[in-house]
Structure formats: C-alpha cells, structure tokens
C-alpha cells in the first residue's frame, strides 16, 4: 500500500436537512495518533460515525488502506481494520464480558482466542469478570471492555469517541495510558475528546472541528491555547 492509511476528501454528512460535516478533508498515516477536538456539536462524533459508515456521506470520498469506502457497509469497513469505541461505551449489556469480546473477533477460532488473551493481558480486570454480564461492570470496566472489543477486530485504525466521558480522573488517566500504549504499538488512532489536555498529551497531531469544518490541523505540541479556546468557545475564524 502506498499513500496515507486514511484519506478523507470533501466529506459531507448530516441528519435530515442538518449539515453536521461540511467538506472535511484530511489524511492520516499508519500508526499516527490524532486528537480530534471541538465543542459539543462541532461534528466530532459524526465524523467518526461517517468514517465507519454508520452515518451516510452526502458527498466526498473516503479511502482506507487503498480501498474506496464509499458505499461500503459498516461491517465491511470494520473487517478492513477499523475499530470503533462509541461514546457511552454501548457494550452488549445482556452478554458476558467474554462474549462481548468474542463477538467482535474477526479471526478464526484459534486466533480469536489469542486475540482474547491479548485483551485480557491489556485489561487484567476484565479477565476476572469474563463470565459476568456486561451490565454488571462499573463505568470504567465497561470502557475497558468497549476498547477491548474494538481491538478484537485487529484494527489498523482505532476510532475513539469521548473515552473519558463519565469516568473519574484516575480511571480516565488509566484509559488514556492504555490508548497511548495502543498507539505506540502501531495502531493509528483518531481520538475525539472533550478533555483537550488529555487528548493533546496522547496525540502527536491535533485537528480542531468547528461547525462541521476542520479549522486547524497541526502538531499537538504546537497548538496555541488561543486557537483551542476559539474552537471550543465557537468564536468566528479560529486561527490555524
């Protein structure tokens, strides 16, 4: 494969007559951790959902690992190597922890069990709860389960939507440390997050979204505080 892992060109998407993404374009390299920041309603979740195919694109093109994703169903995109951790975790509540993980396994049974073991090594807390129904887990454990489930698809790109939402600071720090280790192991990460400080500490690059448009795209270390404030507070013409 040559070129970027993910190439998004002029992507538009919305709900009914409402435009949530307006000509979004960017590329993402293999193993690159990118933070996606912006105020509520900026279009972060919609962008992740549109990349996965859960929200239909009204215009634009998306290529992943050399494959044109337009018109491809979400389940096919997942099998190409896109993992998704949704906002609010959305584990399968009536299924056991182990079944939550195994259902997302793309590998044949033997390799799937190896993947399962890898997730249990990453999240030892889940190993002891393997037989318990997912709804019994704490919020932090459910977040670990949601991340572990996304890893079962052997992702080359991991989409994370607000992974710290509803977690205590200590648990959120633990989750972000895990995300950093996943990125370090060679998985590209696109991390939508309200907590700018944590996201910037995890990512090497930051994209700011405002009203469905990318208003800044650059290194995470160099982003100016004023640029962040403008994007979050919705001031016109956030600086790039």
């Amino acid at each position, binding site marked *: 494969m040559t070129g970027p892992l993910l190439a998004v060109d002029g992507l538009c998407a919305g709900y009914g007559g409402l435009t949530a993404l307006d000509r979004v374009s960017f590329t993402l390299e293999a193993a690159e951790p990118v933070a996606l920041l912006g105020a509520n309603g900026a279009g972060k979740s919609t962008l992740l959902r549109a990349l996965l195919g859960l929200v239909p694109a009204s215009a634009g093109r998306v290529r992943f690992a050399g494959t044109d994703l337009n018109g491809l169903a979400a389940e096919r995109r997942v099998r190409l190597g896109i993992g998704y951790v949704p906002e609010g975790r*959305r584990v399968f509540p009536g299924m056991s922890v182990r079944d939550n993980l195994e259902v997302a396994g793309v590998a044949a049974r033997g390799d799937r069990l190896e993947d399962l073991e890898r997730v249990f090594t990453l999240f030892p807390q889940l190993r002891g709860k393997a037989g318990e129904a997912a709804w019994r887990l704490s919020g932090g454990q459910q977040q670990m389960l949601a991340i572990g489930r996304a890893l079962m698809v052997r992702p080359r790109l991991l989409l994370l939507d607000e992974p710290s939402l509803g977690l205590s600071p200590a648990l959120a720090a633990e989750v972000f440390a895990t995300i950093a280790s996943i990125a370090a192991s060679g998985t590209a990460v696109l991390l939508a997050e309200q907590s700018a400080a944590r996201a910037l500490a995890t990512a090497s690059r930051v994209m700011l979204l405002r009203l469905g448009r990318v208003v800044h795209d650059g290194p995470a270390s160099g982003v100016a505080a004023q640029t962040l404030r403008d994007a979050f507070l919705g001031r016109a013409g956030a600086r790039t």
Partner: protein
Amino acid sequence: MLALQLLLNGIALGAAYALVALGFVLVLNATGAVNFAQGDLVMAGGILAAALAPLLPVPGLLLLPLVLALMAGLGLLLSLAAYLPLRHRPPVAVFISTIAVGIMLQNGVTVLFGPEPRAAPPLLGGGTLDLAGLVVPEQSLAIVAVAALLIGGQQWVFGRTQLGRRLRATAQDPEMARACGVPVTAMVMATFALAAAYAGAAGLLLANQFFVTPTAGGDLILKAYIAVTIGGWGSVPGAVAGALLIALFEVGVSSVLSYPVALGALYVTLLAILVFRPQGLFGEVARRRA
C-alpha cells in the same frame, strides 16, 4: 395416575406451544417487531407436513428435517418481503405487513389445499407405551423429545457459537453489532428463518393430534403472545415457561372443569400477572448500569 397422565399431555402440548412462542420471541428480540404471521407459519408447517405425507410415506420424524428446511426458506422470504423493506419505518408498518403475510398464507393454503382439517403423520407411530401402569402415547413422548432437542439446540447455538453471539448482539444493539463487524441484515434474515423453521416444527407436531385448518394460526399467535407476556417480553426461558403454563391450563383445568372455564382461568391469571408482575415471570424491570 390420572394427574400424571394429564401432566404428560400438558407438557407435550406445552412443548409444541413453546416452539411457537420461541420463534415469536426470537424475531421480537432481533428486530423489535412483532411478527403477527408466526401463527400462520405454524399452520403452514402443519399443512406442509400433511401435504408431504402422501408423497413421502415415512414417519413424521423423517419429514421433520424437510419441513424445517422448507419453512426456513419461507422465513427468509418473509424477512425479504415483509420486514427488510420496512425496517426503518415505524413499527406499525411491520405489524401490518406481517398481518398481511398471515392473511396471504391463510388464503393461499385455502386455495391450494381446501378449508377442511388435515392431519400430519405421527412422529414415530400412533401407539401407546405402558410405563408402570401409565399409558403414554408415543406421540406425546416424541413431541416432548423433539421440542426439547430443538429448544436445547437453539440455546446451544445462541450460548456457545459465534453465530449465536452475533444473533444476540444484533438483538441487543443492531448498530453497535454492525460496528463490531456483524452482518446485521444476514443475522436478521437468519432469525426469521429460524423462527419460521421452529413454527414449522410446531405445526408438524400439533397437526397430528389436533389437525390443522387454514385459519388455525389466529389462535396460535394469540397463545404465543400470551406466553411471551406471561414469561416476560423478550425472555426466551419466559416464553417456554409461559407456553407450558398455557398448555397446563388447557389440559389440566379443562379436564377437571371445562375448556371455556380453563380459558377464563388462564386470562384471569394473565391479568393477575400483568397487575402484580408486569414485567412477566422472567422479565427484569431494568438491568442497565451507567
């Protein structure tokens, strides 16, 4: 001894009803929609078995795999015609489409086979066994065994296989299942196929002792609905328990009093459950955690 006899008859009838209710609840869980054609699918299975019997003069047990396969095909057609085109519409659209399919099945069967009652062949033979003084019809034992095998098989597939995990994930959160790589549309179609196959099995089992007519489905869908309400909306064990309870009322109470009284007592029990335990016997009020 009479009580044991009645209990066995009730369990045999309840086992067949359980297959009806199981198919009903599987579709309900997978799609959130009520399949009102489920009773007519049972009728279709019974008619199919009765129609195949003269062509293939073998015991019902050997006809069963063929009936299961043909009914699974009918279930696939049902999902393609009455569910998938309407799945993004309000639930009432699917209610109406499945009612329409049920009416088409009734009229189709009437045109093709006539309105008279028909009987399917017995599973093994029409004889009885003497078990320590208890006269047991072979058909009753065979019904219980076949239903237990089918229900056990469903539980095994859903609990132990990747297909079962995918079916359960689809039932719990279709969008998230899709985001985990599960082919949700195929899973929904498989659920309809399984539900129709189980309806067909129930039709074959019931049509030997009780005969089958083109309009028999209306009564059966009502019983499935009651079984699922009693057991807990969406609960598979609840649907089986509800079906057994209905059959025990029909056989036990009606033998002591009368069938109308048994039906009246069943509805009073249903009302009492709705008042004192509205979530049903096996239902849970809430089980989500933040």
